[in-house]
């Protein structure tokens, strides 16, 4: 039987200051699924994400396509799980877009023409191939977000994890990013407060609050449950109704 793309079992984590962020999270994501992780601020969403590639290690079990996340497997796990962070400026630090996109695959051992081809494909996927030799500093917010996505796609991850991908984007850039993401056909986990974006991109959602997953189901059904949303400090934008 093929193991799931991602398996999280009884994951618990307390920060060094004693704050318990996760209280036993269970999550199973199948290959090709797009799942939104919803929840209020401080619910533990980012803490969960940082466990998926072993940046944080708590109690419990995390497996990526059957490979347990542990010290010996970190390199492969980080290749398999690509995290796009909320602020593209945290992710882009090289002098040119091309160098930034090649940073990850080069770390994973790609060189020469293979590396160049991978970088080109990643930039093509996000529609930024024409900007390869520009400085990330000189790009618009939406373009930077797409380059940040390319830096991760270039590592050819099995699972794409997006932390607040629509944050600070103008409507058009938000739509363009959605089109890029829908065209990727990869297992995707998307952490977001942007509930309409979750509805547009992810057929399934989980709601996390106080360090546990409190709801898991089709996004439309979850977002139509006004009581559920209210209990976990989630709200649809003004004028939206799904029930």
């Amino acid at each position, binding site marked *: 039987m093929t193991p799931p793309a991602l398996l999280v079992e009884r994951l618990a984590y307390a920060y060094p200051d004693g704050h318990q962020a996760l209280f036993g999270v269970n999550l199973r994501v199948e290959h090709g699924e797009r799942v939104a992780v919803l929840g209020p601020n401080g619910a533990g969403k980012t803490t969960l994400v940082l466990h998926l590639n072993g940046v944080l290690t708590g109690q419990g079990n995390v497996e990526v396509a059957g490979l347990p996340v542990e010290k010996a497997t970190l*390199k492969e796990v980080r290749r398999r799980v690509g995290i796009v962070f909320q602020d593209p400026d*945290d992710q882009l*630090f090289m002098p040119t877009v091309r160098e930034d996109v090649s940073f990850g695959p080069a*770390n994973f051992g790609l060189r020469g023409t293979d*590396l160049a081809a991978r970088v080109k494909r990643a930039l093509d996927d996000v529609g930024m191939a024409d900007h390869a030799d520009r400085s990330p500093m000189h790009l618009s917010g939406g373009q930077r977000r797409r380059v940040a996505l390319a830096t991760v796609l270039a590592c050819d991850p099995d699972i794409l994890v997006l932390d607040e991908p629509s944050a600070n984007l103008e409507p058009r850039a938000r739509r363009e990013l959605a089109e890029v993401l829908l065209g990727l056909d990869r297992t995707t986990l998307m952490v977001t407060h942007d509930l309409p974006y979750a509805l547009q991109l992810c057929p399934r959602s989980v709601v996390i609050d106080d360090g546990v997953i409190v709801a898991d189901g089709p996004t439309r059904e979850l977002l139509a449950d006004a009581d559920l949303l209210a209990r976990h400090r989630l709200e649809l934008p003004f004028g939206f109704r799904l029930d």
Partner: protein
Amino acid sequence: MSAGHAHPLHRPGTSPVHRLAPQVKIVAAGFGVLCVVATPRERFWAFGLYLAVLGCVWTIARIPPGWLARRVVIEAPFVLLALVFPFVAGGPTTTVLGVALSEHGLLSGWNILAKGTLGVLVSLTLSATTAPGELIVGLQRLRVPTMVVTIATLMLRYLDVIAAEARRMRIARICRGHDPRFLWQVGATARGIGTLFIRSYERGERVHLAMVSRGWAGAMPDQGHSAGRSAWLTGLAPTALAVVVLGVSL
């Protein structure tokens, strides 16, 4: 953040000097400076020859003298020190324009001025033709300890991170009526430095996290090729000339 853009000490180009492998340029610059430092201060002609060799490199690298001149002013404090020596040093004196100057002081001042200026010019030539990231890769290829390379990498990145953060905070202060030209408002700037440290630290953490997530394990990926014999021979040619000058001057 997006650090490392358009560094003021780097002049992008495609000249043969720019294309040379960074490790060759680092070794050439290092030994070049050693030659300058080891040259006896009385061999005035030797310093002229060193400058001529550098001039040839600048021509090949297409670095305009004005670009170098604007940046060499970093040496100004040392120039001032060199100018003071002839007036304060003891020993036999000589009269220049009616002013008694110490011979020993004149030579000491010249020594600092000539060697300091040539040292700065060699460093500027290296930085002008080698991007900051390449310098790091060059150090890696020269087997400089990983910890030193990592510290250099992070410093390179954090400098720009902090500068960008400081710029944003300054603009936000100015928008709220702060006028840093007035001395009594220096307090806000000083308090801002503390905040700046915390913010930069936090952002640095996030940048580090993003790097680790893309497989960074402490060393920048080396995507270049090791330099061949011809690259070493070409790159070290100016340094070989400097060694010859040093040999004759000793």
